[in-house]
């Protein structure tokens, strides 16, 4: 059995980041986009925690908790905007909301 090393965590984190990024770019549904953003943030968290363990420094873990808090707030605001948007435009598709242009 191979021990789980920092490299594994980073690989996982990179995979999550990639999945999240592709999700943000390719999915049309804003709910999915928000979920993908959560994936990206969690990829970062894993990265932080992994290095915190590897370096024996708690700063990374504390920072991860900040990120989780931040993600919660961001999800709340994002979903609020989404509901307001749906009430006005009856849509949750990101490419149909393109008014903010010249």
């Amino acid at each position, binding site marked *: 059995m191979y021990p789980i090393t920092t490299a594994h965590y980073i690989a996982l984190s990179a995979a999550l980041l990639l999945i999240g990024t592709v999700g*943000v*770019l390719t999915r049309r549904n804003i709910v999915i*986009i928000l979920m993908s953003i959560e994936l990206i943030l969690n990829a970062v968290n894993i990265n932080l925690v992994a290095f915190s363990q590897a370096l024996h420094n708690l700063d990374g873990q504390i920072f991860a908790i900040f990120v989780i808090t931040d993600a919660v707030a961001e999800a709340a605001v994002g979903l609020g905007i989404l509901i307001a948007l749906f009430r006005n435009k009856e849509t949750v598709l*990101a490419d149909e*909301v*393109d008014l903010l*242009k*010249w």
Partner: protein
Amino acid sequence: MNFLDLIWLIPLFPLCGAVLMLLFGRLLDPQPPSTVAAAPGVEHTHDEHDHGHSHEHGHTHSHTHEHAHDHTHDHEHDHAHGHTHHRGSPLKVLISLLCPGMVLISFLLSAGAVLQLSNSPVKVHEVVQFRWLAGLPFHMMDGRLATFSADWGFLLDPLSAVMILVVTGIGFLIHVYSVGYMAHDNGFYRFFGYLNLFVFFMLMLVLANNYALLFVGWEGVGLCSYLLIGFYFQKKSAGDAGKKAFIVNRVGDAGFIMGMLLMFSLLGTVRFVSVNQALRGGQFHAETAGFGVLSAIAVLFFIGATGKSAQFPLYVWLPDAMEGPTPVSALIHAATMVTAGVYMVARSSALYQLTPSASTVVAAVGAFTAILAATIALVQNDIKRVLAYSTISQLGYMFLALGVGAYWVAVFHLFTHAFFKALLFLCSGSVIHSLGGEQDMRHMGALKDKIPITHWTMWVGSVAIAGIPGFAGFFSKDEILWQTYSSPSGSKVLWIIGLVTAGLTAFYMWRLMNMTFYGKSRVKPEVAAHIHESPPSMTVPLVTLAAGGVFAGWVGAPKLWNLPESFRGFEHWLEPAFRSAAIEASEQGAHDASTEWILMAVSVAVAIIGITVARYFYHHKPHIPDTLEKSLRPLHNLLYNKYYVDEAYDFFFVNGLGKGGGRALGAFDRNIIDGAVNGAGWLTRFSSRVSMWWDTWIVDGAVRFGSFTVKLLSYPVCILQTGRVQAYALAVIVGVLLFFGYFVAGK
């Protein structure tokens, strides 16, 4: 009693009468309302034989008035209307006592004042009551500062003494005559109110001590003339005649005002005494050569005089003034008002002595008017119209005398003329009255025995105006002709004109006498039955005036006759007023006795020839005038239509200058004034269009071009901004990857 200081009372009494009449007269002499509004002639359908001024004047007098002197057909009068105020009404008697009474008081006051003046060594008496006009100071011609001021003051000197006696004396007789003449008229009180007002203004005119106050009277008599000519205002021609008189007089008045102001700016005063002092003081020299300021003043004054005294070219109002009642014609248009111009020029004698060229104008216009009016009078058929032209002609004589420098002779002729012309007019009124309103001489004739008093008094008047020795007109007319001949400023041509006019005068007066009183009766049968002599209130003034027509001339008998000095009192009496002129003229006349005798004989001969020819034509051979008329048809038409002067004035002034000028002004208004406004409007619209085009294409264009340029340049950037969040995210990621790639791969 010192009458000299009471001369201000003289005009006051007639003014009181006028104010009483015009304010309260209606209460004393109530007017039947129905007759005022009724159309002329309507009331005569049931009363064919009514004593008819109304046929003549077209007014409607109440025929319920009884004709006290005409009892024969009183029963024909319709009493059904039941008007209670007739001739005997006590209130009407009050009016007929009050108004003539006021003038009589004035006459007595005047006589007293004149008597005291003749006894006093100082022949000029001034009574100044108060400062009447006080204007702002202004610069006179020579640069000095003067204030235009005039007193309410009265001046009695020999000249105004003659005038007030004529105005009040003859005025009184005519008032008495009017009581009889107007007895059947509506507006009895109105008539006497106007008449008294007229006497007031005329007295103001002749008693004023300055030109400004004289002008008050001047305008006032013009006003009264208008009121009295238009007395029968229901008739259009009477109203028109009144307006004509007023307007024509206004033309002259303009000249008078300008002359007065010019005189003020030259001398700094309009007071007669000061003006005469300044002019005779030697600081002004006679304008023998050329035409200076003094001549301008003199000519302007004369223009004023031509209006009031009916001289060419402003005489046209006087014949039309015959529309008024006959006593008015006698009082205003023969004896007094028309003499205002003569009086004013005589009053300005000091001025005219310095201006020979202006005097020549006066003499020439006077002579021309005299002969012009006399020729017109030859063929007129209306008895009053003949007398009207005769008046114009005699006034021409007066101006001829003024023009040749014989001022006292002009006033002398004014004095005698006042008697015999008032007499003639009142006689013609009596004739008209007795014929029930007939004025056309072709419907008269053989009235000699039917109205004997009228006939004999008119005979005296005609003899007097014709210039038969012994009667008033002879003395003054002969003196005028002699002065015209002998005076240095006179001329033979003017004398011949005057002589011819004298012959014509004799002729037309005897034509009038023959057509009216002698020969065969041509009176319409329905009128003939009622011919009657006028009442005593009319005949007494006639006889009095006839006495004047005989004796008035004897105060100015020719020097030649070597009569006692009292027979030549008139010239001496006026000497203080005309001083240098009188002396100069009398010196001229002294040394040529034989010529004067010859001239006198010639003028008398001419008068007798005129009378004889007229008698021959119209009495013995009545067909001759008709033959002459037919053979000289164009000439007759020319004279009968008064040289077409009225038509010419209508053409040039009424239609030409009045209506044509109005039309021209209208066109000017429409085309030039409105055109300017419209043009300004059009210009504004045009410029606003240009401005709008400029705004749209140039200003807006520049702005829009700027924005277009920005838009064009920003287009490539704009296509990047899609509004899609994911596109931006992609760009961010690609950008991050590029950075990473660059830094990772580059290291």
